[in-house]
Structure formats: C-alpha cells, structure tokens
C-alpha cells in the first residue's frame, strides 16, 4: 500500500518536472524545422526560475479570483496526474477516486477559473481571449464526451487504467476503426486544447490574434510562473492520457518494483518525444485558422468522433 502511494506521488513528480522540458523540446524542434537555432530545451525552466524571483504586481481593482487562479491552474493538472496512468499499467492508490470524466471536469475547472481571472482585471484583451477560449472549449467538449463515452463503451469502464488494455489485447483491436478514428479526433482535440497551431499560435505576440495567451497577460512574477507551469502540465497530462491510455499503452511498468517504475520514466518520455515529432510536422505544415474557421476544424473532430462511435455501437 505504501508503495502504491509512493508511486502515485512519483507520477505527480514526473509531471511536475518534465512538463516544462516537453514544451522546451517542442519549441526547439519547431525552430529547428524553420532553420533557426532556437532556445535551449531547458529555457522553460530558466523562465520559471526567473519569474519565481520577480515581484508580483496585482491590480487594486481585481478580486480574490485573480489571486487564487494561479494556484487552481497549477493544482488541477496535479490532481489529474493522480488519476491517470503516467508510469504504471496497474491502478495506483488514487486511481478509483475519479474516472476519465472526473479528470476532464477537474481540468475544465482550471480553465474556468483562468477565464474568470481574465475577465476580472478588466484588461481590454483579457475578456476577448476569455470568450474565445470559451468558444473553443464549448466546441471541443462534445468531442471529449463522445471520445470518452466510446472508449468506455468498448472497455466497459471509465477508469483509464482498465481502458488502456482493451485496445491492444489482442493486437488486432488496435486496427479497429473506432480506435483509429478516436485517435484522429483526439489529436485534433490536443491541438485545440493545447492552443497549438491550426487553432492558436502559441508563439504569437499579437494581442488581437491571441486565444490562450491573452488570459495570462495581467499576471506577473510568481503568479505568472504558476499559470505557465500549470499550462505546461496540462499539456503534458493530455499527452499522457493520449499516449498511455489511447494509443501506445506499452512501456509502462507492470511490476511493483522500484526499478520497473523508474525504468518506465525514460520510456514514457521517449513516447512523448515521438509524439512531439508528429506534432511538429502538423504544426509546421499547417497555418493558423481564422477564428470562425475553428468551428469547422472542431466540427471535423466532432464528425470523426461520431464516426468512431457509429462504427463501434452499430457493430453488427
């Protein structure tokens, strides 16, 4: 029992420590594709370090929501990391505290507070970004629901630890149409929720075109560091759900020993790195969509997920 609690905390530590690295590697790879040298892959850590040592300025007119939001944004991905398989293929201590829908709601809570905080300061760009995030969010949520329900329908459970084995035993299940279509839909969701390129440009500095970034414009110092780190962790957690539950549930620790669990860390990071390569290809070959085209992009994701559901539920 004590071991399982320890492993669970180790999962959280892995998410905490390696989330900035993932985003650093992603931005470095993108710069390399554009024939630039790019910042070091450890730049996100330096940014966080710098921000933690800076003064924080909070507007006099903002309410408690603005002060609390960084902590909520920071803590919610950690909660989700307790629920999902990051390193082990068997359920850990907190695995049955919440299912995939519960994890989705916890992640959505962070997004909800970030939106409120953006409106709270009355910065002219904050509410614009907030309403846009809500637009993307409410278009993405039905897709999330259908993906989760189809997965649960196949596996007969909504607990991610139980779901992950269904798609690869036997291996022929991997090629089931519902599985492949769900993976396609989930990639589009990761692009939308992570604010990646066809939906939002994460490196853009033009406030009027921002979707995700403009919510944190008013934050400085420690608060900004927490918001940033929280965003990176949210992305990492989404990648873990995608890779460890939906696509490649290999490489996770099956044994209870410390060695097996520690060995799983580089394997999981390798999987994340491989997916980041795919992501770089997607991001470098597409251009950012106009705002009202996002509805069509997520409509395509919705149709894909519904097609997955139909091929599964109406299986003759």
């Amino acid at each position: 029992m004590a071991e399982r609690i320890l492993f669970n905390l180790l999962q959280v530590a892995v998410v905490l420590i390696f989330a900035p690295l993932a985003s650093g590697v992603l931005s470095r790879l993108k710069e390399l594709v554009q024939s630039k040298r790019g910042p070091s892959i450890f730049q996100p850590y330096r940014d966080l370090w710098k921000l933690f040592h800076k003064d924080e300025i909070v507007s006099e007119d903002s309410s408690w929501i603005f002060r609390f939001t960084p902590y909520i944004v920071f803590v919610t991905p950690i909660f989700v990391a307790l629920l999902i398989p990051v390193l082990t293929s068997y359920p850990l201590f907190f695995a049955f505290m919440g299912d995939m829908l519960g994890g989705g709601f916890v992640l959505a809570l962070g997004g909800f507070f970030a939106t409120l905080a953006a409106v709270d300061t009355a910065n002219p760009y904050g509410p614009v970004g907030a309403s846009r995030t809500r637009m993307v969010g409410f278009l993405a949520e039905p897709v999330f629901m259908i993906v989760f329900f189809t997965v649960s329908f196949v596996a007969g459970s909504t607990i991610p630890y139980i779901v992950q084995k269904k798609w690869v035993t036997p291996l022929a299940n991997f090629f089931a149409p519902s599985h492949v279509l769900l993976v396609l839909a989930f990639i589009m969701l990761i692009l939308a929720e992570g604010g990646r390129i066809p939906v939002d440009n994460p490196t853009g500095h033009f406030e009027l075109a921002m979707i995700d970034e403009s919510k944190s414009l008013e934050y400085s110092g420690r608060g900004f560091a927490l918001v940033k780190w929280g965003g990176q962790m949210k992305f990492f957690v989404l990648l873990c759900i995608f890779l460890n539950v939906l696509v490649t549930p290999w490489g996770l620790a099956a044994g209870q020993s410390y060695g097996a669990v520690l060995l799983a860390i580089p394997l999981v990071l390798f999987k994340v790195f491989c997916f980041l390569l795919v992501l770089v290809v997607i991001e470098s070959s597409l251009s950012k969509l106009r705002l009202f085209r996002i509805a069509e992009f997520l409509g395509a994701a919705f149709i894909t997920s519904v097609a997955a559901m139909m091929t599964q539920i109406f299986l003759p």
Partner: protein
Amino acid sequence: MSDATKYLLDNLNALAAGLFLLTGFGIVAMRQARGCLNLFIAQSLLLAASAALLGLRYDSAHLYGVALVNLISKPIVVPWLLRRTSPAGIYTRREIDQVLNIPTALLIAMALAVGAYFVGIPLAKAVGPDARGPNVSIGIAVLLLGAFTLTVRREALSLLIGLLAMENGAFLAGIAIARDLGMLVELAIATDGLIIVFIMGVLVRAVQKQVGTTAIGDLASLKEGAAEPAADEALS
C-alpha cells in the same frame, strides 16, 4: 487461415470502411475542388483496399479483380480524364456560397449516416452471415452522403465528385453483398463511371465557355433580369 488472422483482416477491412466514411464526410465539407478530388482519390484507394482485404479474407480471386479495376480506373484515369476535359482554373476555385454553411451541412450529413445504419444492418443480416462487416451500412451511408453533396454543392466539379462518391458507396456495399458478381458486370460499371466523368467533364467545359463560370448554383433562371417577372405576369 487461423481465427486470429481472420479477426485481424475483419478489423482492417472495418478500418478501411471507417476511413471511407470519413472521406465521405470530407467531400461534403471540403471547400476547394482540388481537395474534393484528392478526397475522392483517397476514397477510391480505400475502396480498393477493402475489396482486396475481403478477397484475402474469403479467398475470392474475383474481389482482387474488383480491387485492381478500382485501383486503375478511379485514382488514375478519372483525374486524368478530368484534367483533359474540364478547364484548368476549376481546381483552384474556392466555393464560397454553399447552400448550407459547413457545420450545418456536417450535422445533417451525420444524421444521414446514422439513418443509413438503421437501413444497412437489417439489410446485411438479411443477406447472410458473411455480409456481417460494416461494409453494407457504410456503403449506404456514403451513397446518401454523395446524394447530399449533390444537393448542397453549387460548383460543377464538386457535384461530379458527389456523384462518383455515390457510386463508390454502392460499390463498397456491393462487394460485401455479392462477392461473385461476375467480372463483366464490374468492368461494365467501372467503364460506365468513366463515361459519366467524360461526359460531365465535356459538359462543364461547355458551360464554362458559354457562361464564363462553373458555379452551377447561379444558373437557376433561364434568362437574366427582366424576363422573369414578365413570365410570372403572363402566368397569373
């Protein structure tokens, strides 16, 4: 052939059919004529893959023939014919004024696909245990999606591709229902499709020459402007 291999082939065939359905949705939603054509090519390749996989699964040389015919006629000959017959500018045109906006069209298309399953499953069951795969339902769904494309599109080339998608859907359902139809029939159908493409291509060229546009949707009235009210008055 072991059961595991059969299961794998069934799954791969279902995957081809599922992606086939996705391309059907894509043809409804794609704006650019070139994108539509590419989706159609992908759809035909998936159809050929499904036929080949079913051929392997049920050990039927006839289905290999179907796959081969599809592999040659649709992805290669159809685009070649279209390039020869229809005007070049048509590929880069973007269709701005669809009858419905794209999310609405996609939602209706989705309802059509769900409806197709309610027709397809009893049909597949009536045919026999061997037609159990998703082919029949998805074939009917793509047939309906092609028909839907015909109603919402206003550009000549995308209309043609909707028509061809209908034919693809019928083919996908057909290879699951009647596996030994006779090569002559398949060849006749394939040639028929090519002749349709040829005639439509020439027609599009003629329309382009005559009217200066290929936006068929705008050609709703016989004569422009003043002629119409006069005709109405004459009727009343």
